[in-house]
C-alpha cells in the first residue's frame, strides 16, 4: 500500500468513525450488540400428580397443578417457550400460574417447572373474543354427569365405565376433528364422598389428557359433600343435607374444613371469566365466545332459604347482564326426572336429600323461562332423559300438559315438537308469540354409571316415564321409554345461528339430538 493509499484509507476511516460518534463527543465509539437476555425458561419439566386448566378466557388462563414445580412456561411454539410465570401456592396443596395478556383464539404450549419445551399434549387454545365464534365456526362443549366412578369407592361395580364414556366422546370428535373447547361436570364428579383422593382417581387420573388441553367447569353434586355432617351430625355418603360447605372433614388433625371441591377447583367468584361476580365459588358464570354458562349450587345453597334467595338474586342479575347468543345452565339436581331413586315428584323422602329437585323446579325454572336460558343440564339420576322445549312447568309431573307447557307443531296440542329433524326449535318460540321463554332440560347423570332398574325409591312403572321428557326411539323397549338407561354423555355445538345437542353413547353414536335456531 503506497502513501496515498494509506492517506485515503485513514481519511475514510476517520469519516466512518465520525459518523458513528456522538456529536457532543468527538471520540469514536463502537456499538457492541447487547448480550441476548437469558431465557427465563431454562429448567426441566417437572412431574405433577394433577395438571389442569381453569378459568380459560380470551386473554387468560390458570394452569393448576399439584407437584414440586413453582413455575410454568408458555409460548406459541412448543419448542420455544420463553415466558415464565411464577406460581402461587394455593389451598389443597396446589400451585396456580395465572397467565394473562394472551391473544384470543390462539394456541399456546406450556411446561411445568420452567422447561423451554412443552411436552406433547400440554397446550390449549384461548377462547374467542366475547361474542365471537371460534375459528371452527362453532363452540363445542362436552357435558358429563355423575362421572366420578373411576376411583376405588365404585371401581368394583363400575370398572371402566367413565373411561368408556370418555372413549365415546373421543370417537364422536374424531369424526370431524373438532376437539371439545371445554367440559362441564354436572356433579357427583368423585364418588363416594368427594374427597381429595376421590377427585384424584375419578377426575385427574380418569381424564388426564383432556384436562391439560380443555378447561373443566364443575358443579356440586350430593357426593361432593362428604359424609354429610349437618352442623356436626353424620350421614352416609351422598346423603348430606347441610348448607355449610365447611362441614367437610379434610385431614386427621384438623377442624372440619371446606369441602375439597372448593380447594381443588378455582372458580370465578369475582366474575374473572365474564360472568357477574357471585362472591362464592359454589355458583358462578362465565362466557366462552358467544355462549354464556351458569353453574348453580343445588346441593348446598339450595337447602337454606336465605342462601337460596341470595343465589336467585345473583342469577337474575347475571342473566340480566348477559346478551350472548346462547345460555347454558348446569346444576346437579334435575327439576324433572323419573330416574332410579330420584323421582322429582317424591323429593321429601328419607331426610329430604332430594328436596333441591323441587326447590330448583319451583324457584328457578321461572327465572330460566323469563331470562332467556336455552338449555339446562343436570345429573343425579343415572340415565339419560331430556325434555321437550318447555315453559312454565313448576309442578309435579301430573300437572304437565303439551298444550300448556310444550312447544307445539302448528299450535296443535297433540303434537309437541321433538326438536329433531324438521321439528327443530326456534329460540324465539312461535308458540309463545316470538319470545325466548322456553328451555330444554336434559339429565345426563349416566357418564360413570347407568342404572339398570328403578331402584328402591322409584316405582318401576314410572321409571323413565316423566311426561315432560320425550320418548327415546333408541330405547330397547316397545313402546320406547322417555329415557335411556345406558352410559353416555352430551355434546353441544353452538354456532351463531344454531345450538345442536347430541346425546352420544360409549361408541360415539348419536342416540338423540335436538336443534335450537336463532
Amino acid at each position: 500500500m503506497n502513501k496515498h493509499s494509506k492517506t485515503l484509507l485513514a481519511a475514510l476511516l476517520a469519516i466512518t468513525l465520525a459518523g458513528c460518534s456522538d456529536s457532543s463527543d468527538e471520540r469514536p465509539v463502537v456499538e457492541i450488540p447487547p448480550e441476548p437476555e437469558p431465557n427465563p425458561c431454562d429448567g426441566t419439566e417437572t412431574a405433577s400428580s394433577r395438571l389442569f386448566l381453569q378459568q380459560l378466557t380470551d386473554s387468560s388462563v390458570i394452569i393448576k397443578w399439584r407437584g414440586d414445580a413453582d413455575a410454568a412456561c408458555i409460548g406459541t411454539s412448543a419448542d420455544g417457550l420463553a415466558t415464565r410465570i411464577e406460581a402461587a401456592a394455593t389451598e389443597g396443596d396446589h400451585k396456580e400460574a395465572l397467565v394473562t395478556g394472551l391473544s384470543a383464539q390462539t394456541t399456546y404450549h406450556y411446561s411445568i417447572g420452567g422447561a423451554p419445551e412443552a411436552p406433547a399434549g400440554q397446550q390449549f387454545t384461548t377462547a374467542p373474543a366475547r361474542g365471537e365464534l371460534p375459528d371452527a365456526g362453532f363452540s363445542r362443549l362436552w357435558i358429563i354427569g355423575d362421572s366420578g366412578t373411576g376411583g376405588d369407592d365404585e371401581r368394583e361395580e363400575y370398572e371402566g365405565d367413565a373411561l368408556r364414556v370418555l372413549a365415546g366422546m373421543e370417537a364422536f370428535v374424531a369424526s370431524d376433528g373438532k376437539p371439545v373447547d371445554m367440559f362441564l361436570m354436572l356433579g357427583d364428579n368423585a364418588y363416594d364422598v368427594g374427597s381429595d383422593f376421590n377427585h384424584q382417581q375419578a377426575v385427574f387420573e380418569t381424564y388426564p389428557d383432556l384436562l391439560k388441553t380443555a378447561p373443566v367447569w364443575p358443579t356440586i353434586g350430593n357426593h361432593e359433600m362428604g359424609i354429610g355432617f349437618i352442623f356436626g351430625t353424620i350421614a352416609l355418603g351422598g346423603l348430606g343435607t347441610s348448607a355449610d360447605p365447611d362441614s367437610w372433614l379434610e385431614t386427621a388433625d384438623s377442624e372440619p374444613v371446606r369441602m375439597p371441591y372448593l380447594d381443588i377447583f378455582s372458580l370465578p367468584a369475582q366474575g374473572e371469566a365474564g360472568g357477574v361476580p357471585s362472591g362464592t365459588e359454589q355458583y358462578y358464570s362465565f362466557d366462552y365466545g358467544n355462549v354464556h354458562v351458569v353453574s348453580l349450587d343445588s346441593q348446598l345453597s339450595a337447602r337454606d332459604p336465605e342462601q337460596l334467595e341470595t343465589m336467585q338474586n345473583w342469577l337474575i342479575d347475571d342473566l340480566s347482564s348477559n346478551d350472548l347468543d346462547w345460555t347454558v345452565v348446569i346444576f346437579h339436581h334435575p327439576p324433572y326426572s323419573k330416574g332410579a331413586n330420584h323421582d322429582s315428584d317424591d323429593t321429601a323422602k328419607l331426610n329430604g336429600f332430594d328436596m333441591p329437585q323441587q326447590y330448583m323446579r319451583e324457584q328457578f325454572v321461572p327465572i330460566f323461562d323469563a331470562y332467556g336460558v336455552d338449555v339446562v343440564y343436570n345429573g343425579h339420576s343415572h340415565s339419560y332423559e331430556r325434555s321437550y322445549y318447555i315453559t312454565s312447568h313448576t309442578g309435579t309431573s301430573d300437572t304437565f300438559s303439551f298444550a300448556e307447557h310444550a312447544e307445539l307443531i302448528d299450535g296443535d296440542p297433540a303434537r309437541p315438537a321433538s326438536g329433531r329433524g324438521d321439528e327443530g326449535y326456534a329460540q324465539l318460540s312461535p308458540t309463545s308469540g316470538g319470545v325466548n321463554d322456553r328451555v330444554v332440560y336434559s339429565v345426563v347423570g349416566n357418564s360413570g354409571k347407568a342404572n339398570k332398574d328403578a331402584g328402591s325409591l322409584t316405582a318401576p312403572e314410572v321409571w323413565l316415564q316423566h311426561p315432560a321428557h320425550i320418548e327415546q326411539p333408541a330405547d330397547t323397549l316397545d313402546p320406547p321409554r322417555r329415557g335411556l338407561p345406558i352410559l353416555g354423555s352430551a355434546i353441544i355445538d353452538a354456532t351463531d345461528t344454531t345450538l345442536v345437542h347430541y346425546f352420544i353413547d360409549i361408541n360415539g353414536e348419536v342416540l338423540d339430538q335436538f336443534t335450537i335456531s336463532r
Partner: protein
Amino acid sequence: MSAGVFRTHLLLCLGLLLAIQAGAHPGHDEQLEAVNKALATAPEEQALYLQRGNIHAEIGHYSEALQDFNRARELGPEERVDFAESVMHYRKGDRATAARLVDKHISRFPNDPGGYEHRALIARAEGNHAQALADLRTYFTLRERPNPGLYVSAARMLQQDGQTSDAIAVLDLGLEQLGTIPQLQRYAIELELERSQPEAAIVRMQSLRGPLKDSANWKLDMADLLLAAGRNSEAATLLLEAREQLQSQRATPARKALEDRAETLAATLSP
C-alpha cells in the same frame, strides 16, 4: 381431642358402613341395618352409636336417638356427643337443651365454626338476635369465604330489630370479604333508601355498573334512584340508553317487563 380428630374417628367407622352399603342412596332402614351390622362386630364403638342416634334423630325417633347418645356418652369421651345431641334437640324443638349442649361444644372446641353457625340458628329461632349475630360474626372471622347468604341473614335480623345502620355494616363487611357482589350491594341499597340516604344508594349502585356490565336492568335501577333523588336529567339519559339497548336484544319475558318499566319511567319523566 380436637373436633377434627374426633370426626376422623367417626369417619373411620363410617368407612366400615360405606363398605357395607350396597346402594348409593340408601334409605334410613338400610342405614340402620348397616349400622346394626357394624355394631354386631364392634359393640363398643362409640361412633356407631352416634351414627345410629343421628339416623334416629333424622326420622324423628327421638327416644331411640337419645338412648344411643346416652350409650355413646357411657362409652366416652363425652364431648363427642354434645354437638350431635344438640342438633337432635334442635330438631325436636327443645331449643333450650340444644343451646346448652352446643354451648358445651363451643367451650371445648372454640375454633369449630360449625358450632357457632348452629348456635346462631338456635338463637335466631329463639328471637335472640344479639346472640345469633354475635355467633355469625365469629363464624365470619373463622371462615375465609362464607356464603353470601349468611351476610344477608345477619343483616335481615338487624333490619328486623330496627338496626339499619348495623345491617348495612354487616353487608359492608361481606362486601369487603367477598368483593363487590350484587346480592349484598343491592340489599345495602334497599337499606340506604330505608334510612333516607338516596345519594348513598346511588353511590352503591354506581359500584355495580361494571359488575353488571352496564346492563339495561342496571340502567333502569339507577334511573329509578336518580329520579328519586331529583336528578331527572341523568335519569332521562340512562332511560334513553336502556331503551335503545333493549331494542337491540332478543325478546325475553324479563326484557319485555323492562320495556314496560322503561315506558312507565318515561311517562314519569315527561313534563
